[in-house]
């Protein structure tokens, strides 16, 4: 965290200028008032606001497609005034945009919107995560040798998953993450999703509640047995062999760890 020099004229100037970028009331100091009185001050106000809104729109493309440009940019402007970027890598801007949408009154009739935002965020995190090794089914055959359930499946650094109890957020998100048009009805029920980056490109697959619980347990450093138990608590009929195969195929794991 950087701090200003409390006694300096430069600090006073920058405090006043930064405030005036968003506050259109008369600045306290004459030197800043002399700047905001010039029509050209709008260039700075507009550039800063546009830079933040453009970044949010780039980071939340499915949300923007769902609500349209005008709605998105109006909502984003409200978000920007409350939450300026904390880092200059704008790819990461809007970390809590999903929480903002969940509280945002005009979005109350779109219960899937925070979920779509969360999945857009999962995409960004998967895209920029550290490179990692990739575990495939062949590795398990070679390594597990009968004690598979006592080993730990370590989650791949780029794997992100989320479960949405009250809306088919994954179906709605995946239909709006690209420019393609999809037809067909949507069954209204809870859904989850797993996003991975086994190679360069982020990819995604639907995941049920038991699958999400299985990954939660793996991420908490549990053994395969712990993860299986957790998954079965959510769905006693879960097909664990099939689930693990789907997760491996998606690239959810980096390696097998021993727990001794």
């Amino acid at each position, binding site marked *: 965290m950087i701090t200003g020099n409390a006694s300096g004229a430069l600090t006073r100037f920058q405090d006043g200028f930064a405030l005036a970028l968003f506050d259109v009331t008369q600045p306290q100091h004459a030197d800043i008032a002399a700047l905001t009185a010039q029509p050209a001050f709008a*260039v700075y106000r507009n550039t800063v606001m546009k830079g933040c809104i453009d970044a949010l729109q780039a980071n939340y493309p499915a949300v923007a497609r769902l609500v349209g440009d005008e709605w998105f940019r109006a909502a984003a402007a409200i978000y920007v005034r409350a939450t300026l970027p904390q880092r*200059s890598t704008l790819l990461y801007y809007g970390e809590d945009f999903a929480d903002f949408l969940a509280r945002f009154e005009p979005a109350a009739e779109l219960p899937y919107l925070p979920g779509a935002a969360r999945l857009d965020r999962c995409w960004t995190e998967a895209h*920029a995560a550290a490179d990692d090794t990739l575990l495939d089914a062949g590795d398990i055959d070679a390594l597990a040798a009968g004690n598979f359930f006592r080993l730990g499946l370590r989650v791949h650094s780029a794997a992100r998953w989320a479960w949405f109890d009250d809306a088919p957020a994954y179906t709605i998100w995946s239909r709006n993450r690209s420019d393609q048009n999809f037809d067909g009805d949507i069954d209204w029920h809870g859904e989850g999703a797993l996003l991975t980056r086994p190679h360069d490109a982020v990819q995604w697959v639907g995941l049920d509640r038991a699958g999400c619980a299985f990954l939660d347990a793996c991420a908490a450093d549990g053994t395969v047995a712990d993860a299986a138990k957790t998954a079965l608590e959510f769905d006693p009929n879960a097909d664990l062999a099939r689930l693990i195969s789907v997760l491996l195929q998606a690239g959810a794991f980096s390696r097998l760890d021993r727990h001794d």
Partner: protein
Amino acid sequence: MTTFLTAGLGLKPQHYDAALDCSAAGLWFEVHPENYMVAGGPRLSWLEAIRAEHGISLHGVALSLAADAEPDPAHLGQLADLCRRIEPALVSEHLAWSTWRGAYHPDLLPFPRTGEALTRIAANISRTQDALQRRIAVENPSHYLKLEGHAWSEIDFLRELARRTGCGLLLDVNNVYVSARNTGYSAEDYIDTFPGEHVMEIHLAGHSDDPNLGTALLVDTHDAPVAPAVWALYERLIRRIGRKPTLIERDGNVPAFAALMAERERAAAVLHGAMAVAA
């Protein structure tokens, strides 16, 4: 790869494949390091693939050298990591501020060029050069406001920063034209007196009339081809100071790669002409 940098292009994501395949002599690419400060993934592997074929310049927009505060250590550390990874031919930043009290304002903000600011910015440049273990170039930004309280002219301020810190300078000719028009000075005089011995890089870009104020205010939008008046200033500069790595910047209304390469060829021809005179 140590080929001399001639004219380069700002690298746009939509041009990665074309950029990778292009074999024009002396071609190099510039990127904003902030877009590559990620832990891993395709952005870094794309940049490394380009780097294997071409020289790279890292042109920062967010170090906030003119803030009355030390550069963010985390940002500086990430920039140093990227420099180790990419081994750029050039590293540059702006004579401006953007991050203040932990918030990033995505713009290049002005300040009064006082003795106090000079001391602070010189310290920030030195800290950056120490962290990166290399000389950086500092760019003249575009100006829109008539700001009272300057104790130094911009050229004297930049020359003094170079003297105190050993930094180089990046001369953005479009910024000179835009600022001269907006704040009322002679762009030709500025170009004629800029200290050529410190110039490590030159920028050329397009600008636009302000949507509300029209030709009374030019905005450094990088969304159009380089203007004829800016080409004229560039040719005037190169005749005086000789060849320097020159970049065509384009951030909005990005055309096909071939169209940007045509502007880049025009800059390369100006440089080639200067070399012939020198020889």
